């Protein structure tokens, strides 16, 4: 498989796409965020597995998002997600509030090619009350009344995430971050950015192979060193808490968010 440029990957995301993104600690392709924003994408339906942070917050701030489906939006220790909170107050986005295992269940159903998966809990919550797409059904194996929630399969058009490495065949090493596999199994196309390309097949060694997402599920790979920054990447580098904190403060106003984005663009040009 040829490796692509980041710009090529960004072009594979159309307006209105259902775009799935991983939780911060699993490997977020922050390198793709500014390129998606620069494309002026509109009406994205973003699905966070199972929560979202700075990347979906920036996409919301830039006006790319119509709908967000997530169990939470947070910058972790840096506080709440500023653009998300502002968009909710203004009624500028539709929020499909979820709970973490329900999002996992939706991806699992897609992975299995079945219409839904069932899950305990949630009955009597306002989360369920505000999700008409989730149905309470009777457990068909029980003689007694036993309500259980059916979660429809989540089939994203595109998934984007970041990992330490891929090989020349397009196999990607996800380690024990199995939610990245869930994302890829469920999605039509999966776009991956990596710190580096290795020259030997990741499937050659059984120890490494256990943590590999095979190329079968991968549409395109691009190299982006420090591609998760300022969010950290497991086994590679920690989060830059000072920079995330600066974002949390500056993005509190639309003007501050724009100024932060312009500054980040300049920094990007300086290194490229």
């Amino acid at each position, binding site marked *: 498989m040829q490796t692509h440029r980041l710009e090529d990957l960004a072009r594979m995301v159309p307006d209105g796409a259902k775009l799935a993104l991983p939780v911060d600690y699993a490997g977020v392709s922050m390198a793709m965020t500014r390129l998606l924003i620069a494309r002026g994408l509109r009406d994205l339906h973003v699905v966070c597995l199972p929560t979202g942070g700075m990347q979906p917050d920036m996409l919301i701030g830039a006006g790319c998002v119509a709908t967000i489906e997530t169990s939470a939006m947070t910058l972790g220790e840096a506080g709440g997600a500023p653009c998300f909170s502002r968009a909710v*107050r203004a009624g500028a986005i539709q929020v499909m509030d979820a709970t973490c295992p329900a999002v996992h269940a939706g991806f*699992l159903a897609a992975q299995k090619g079945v219409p839904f998966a069932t*899950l*305990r*809990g949630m009955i009597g919550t306002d989360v369920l009350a505000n999700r008409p797409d989730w149905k309470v059904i009777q457990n068909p194996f029980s003689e007694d009344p036993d309500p259980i929630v059916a979660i429809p399969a989540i089939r994203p058009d595109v998934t984007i995430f970041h990992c330490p490495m891929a090989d020349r065949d397009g196999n990607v090493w996800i380690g024990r*971050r199995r939610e990245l596999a869930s994302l890829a199994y469920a999605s039509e196309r999966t776009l991956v950015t990596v710190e580096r390309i290795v020259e030997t097949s990741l499937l050659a060694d059984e120890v490494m192979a256990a943590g590999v997402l095979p190329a079968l599920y991968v549409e395109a790979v691009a190299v982006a060193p420090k591609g998760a920054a300022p969010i950290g990447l497991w086994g590679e580098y920690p989060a830059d808490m000072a920079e995330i904190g600066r974002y949390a403060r500056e993005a509190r106003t639309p003007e501050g968010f724009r100024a932060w984005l312009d500054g980040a663009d300049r920094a990007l040009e300086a290194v490229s």
Partner: protein
Amino acid sequence: MTAVLPRERLIVSIARLLEGVRHVAVGASSPIPAAGAMLLRALAERQGKPRVRISILGSREHNFFTNGSAELFDCAGQGRIDAFFLGGGQIDGEANINLVGTGDYPQTPVRWPGSFGSSYLYFVVPRVILFREEHTPRVFVEKVDFVSAPGTSSDGVYRPGGPHALLTGLGVFSFNKAQKRFRLDSVHPGHTLSEIIAATGFAFDHEPEVPETADPDAATLALLRGRVLTELGETYPEFARQMTADIAGLDLKRAG
């Protein structure tokens, strides 16, 4: 009598509320619950009781999971997690919790991060400890504006889990599921029953005289200030540093 920090009382209270659990999970950014769980583990080891497992989400040193972020929920659904902690921007007298926001949903004027796993874990983890340091009427309300997770469920709904206790900066409550009411079991030293009544937006049961939350004995306190603080520093360095400084401050105050 050794002086005890308010936060040390919270940690000791958590260890007491966890007595007997085999596997406790702790959410990310929860240093006080994590410290309480670590103290329980250290105490169990000292007393020759069965090993206590701790899973701290987002920690590399204290996390066994290898199946991604779904594993915690799978584990909980199978009954493999005995205790978990939940907070809430609002908590009401029936132990309903709100992690979403205040005012009319969905365009809430104050929006919090979201429900995370609460809408599930509250149902399946047997011993959920509600923990919120801030004890004010804006947190402890008559009725939550949004139910992220309900305190109780109607008959016929699968509900092996639920609220076990509520710990705040002012006191410790237990929860009666049949009556859907909290009961104040103890008041932290330096605070009063009338202060708690004024700070709580819902009615709760209590004896005419409510006992003080007991201070830890010297051996427990030594374990907390030694081994537990060291372990805590691996995952929450800033919190552990601050607590070490506060403990040193206590000693200075006594010396002066």
